């Protein structure tokens, strides 16, 4: 199945901004994070089609997965 993956902020470094990727059905958000070798300590906000999900969320054909780091103030 095709999934659009969008990366933000530091997660883009050395990777990409947006890409369509092929995954087998049954793929979870966590699987994509592992596949892209994203540092887990930086992946904080997980959105599928603009809705918050968790690492175990099952992806579906044409989903848009957005991965963002934590928002932090100081």
């Amino acid at each position, binding site marked *: 199945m095709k999934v659009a993956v969008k990366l*933000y*902020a530091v997660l883009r470094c050395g990777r990409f901004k947006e890409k369509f990727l092929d995954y087998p059905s049954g793929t979870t958000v966590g699987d994509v994070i592992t596949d892209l070798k994203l540092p887990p300590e*930086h992946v904080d906000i997980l959105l599928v089609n603009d809705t918050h999900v968790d690492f175990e969320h099952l992806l579906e054909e044409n989903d848009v997965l957005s991965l963002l780091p934590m928002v*932090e*103030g100081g």
Partner: protein
Amino acid sequence: MRFLTDKPAVEPASVLYRRCTVDLKNGDMQMGEVPCLNLEDVLGGFGRSFQLLEKREICDAYVDENPLIVNVGLLTGSHVMTGMRTYFSGYSPIKGSRKGLPAAMWSAGSGKFGAKLKWTGLDEIIFENRSDQPVYMVIREGNDGPVVELKPAVHLLGLTTHEKIMSLQKEYDDAHFAVIGPAGENWQNVYAGAVALSTENQLKSKEDKSRFAGRGGMGSLMGYKNVLALVAQSNDKLGSTPEPVKKANVNVIKGGGSARLQPIKRGGGGGTWAAYEVLQAFHAVPVNNFRPQGNDIPERLFRSRVEKSYEIKSEACYRCGITCHNNIYKRKEDGSAGEFLAKFDYEPLNLLGTNLGLHETEQAAALIHLCDNYGMDAITVGVTVAYVLSYNERHPQTPILNGITFGDFDGIRRLVELTGQGKAPEIGRGSMRLSVDLGETGYAYHVKGLELAAYQPETNPGYIWAIAGGHMSMGTYGMLAREGKTDTKSWVEAITQDKLQIVGFDMIGLCKFFDIVKGIGTAMVVDCLKAEHGVIVTEQELKDAVKRAFLRGMALEFRQGYDKDEFCLPAEVTESPNPNIKMPMLTTPEFLAELNEKVWEVFDREMQELL
């Protein structure tokens, strides 16, 4: 601090801190050891200062009876990473109730002054009354304890914060400094004066890289008292780091807690600046007085854009491995770093950049530089200027303050300069007073008189219950973006339990980045306290002390005349919902009414014995 017990939560009176009370009217000083009343007294910072403030009946910030309390936390000056905090407390010139009474307030800053102060042997200074001549205070370590002296400061008058620090550095070796700028000196017209704290980097590089205790106008209160600077002179007191603290420090750096704040080249997230990119994904970066437009305009101040033309150096506070500072320099022809421009943190960058319609690096940097050098809170100044720009947009035929508009850099810069010089009280006295004078309060982005940090109120109803500024005293500002929670139960729990724990860092002497998610009620802090001071405190005792201190702060708000209807977001948020923000709309009248009812159910009950 002197510990005659190893159980400070059970026997707080057996913990003594050293306090110097100075009567600025006649120069009298009283030095003594004070037994603690409870664990929050032991921890220090606002946990202690608010217990003194609640004993005073203060009707105006600028009266002699309003003390300025300067203190540190239990872990300030310790081996624990980020243990650099100094706290300034008093009744605030800027934060106040509709009845006109000033609110109790504290402000915290890093830099090395706090550690140096602690190493002189002094834990707290209380300034009473005011001096009729400008003075500065020198605190030294003597053979029999700290030695304190007041000195004439006429030669410092009018100097910027950086100039004052550079001037004092020539006179005092091995010292660090806390100073006000021209804004604080012009306290009559600037209620948003900040206190600048010197850093090692600043003293070595001679560049204006102070840290700031910015919120609440504590620099203006210091200016009212005619105290222009504090000098803490002592040897550095850190020997080898105890093993448990070493372990905690490594955990702070490598355990993931601070990873997002560390330099990108070290695999980190690049400091608070990264919030620009995260919030822009939701179109929730404040633009033109907190009205995001649903376009890509905030991207012009993204780090990836800025670093194409400027050098960005990752630098740190003394002995801090988090290295969260992003200092911006002009780039020389040979590609090396040239002139230092400013430090880019998310809040000042947004509020003196995108939220004013300014999208050029050097323009935002120039305004940050001005606020730093005049010694003003960038948040209050930025938000109040944004209010003026939005007013002029709504009233093109009858604008105020020379009719400046969003994006008018020259006009805005001039207004910021005039503010720092005390010549633009409309800005210097903050958005609450200006909006009341103009009769358009709904567009003023403050809660309870203190301007909002750079997080859209639509995303953070927790602002309403913050007791000392929206992002430093209520950790809900990123909750909607991070968790997407839209049910009242989650928000009530966050506001009344977990997210208020952020204020614990403003007691104990550590920066919030030590563990911003969990607060100070953790095994890591318990281990550090045992290793540093030999005391045994539980995680729950720490959490309970933080909660009591928070509730005391809220009770003090009511004591200073706040009505519950002042606990509210700016009216524009509910009256004219912004359709561009791509997050669930939390701030409907219905949601806010339900949240109010449920949060007050908890806080009313918990505050009962404090009111």
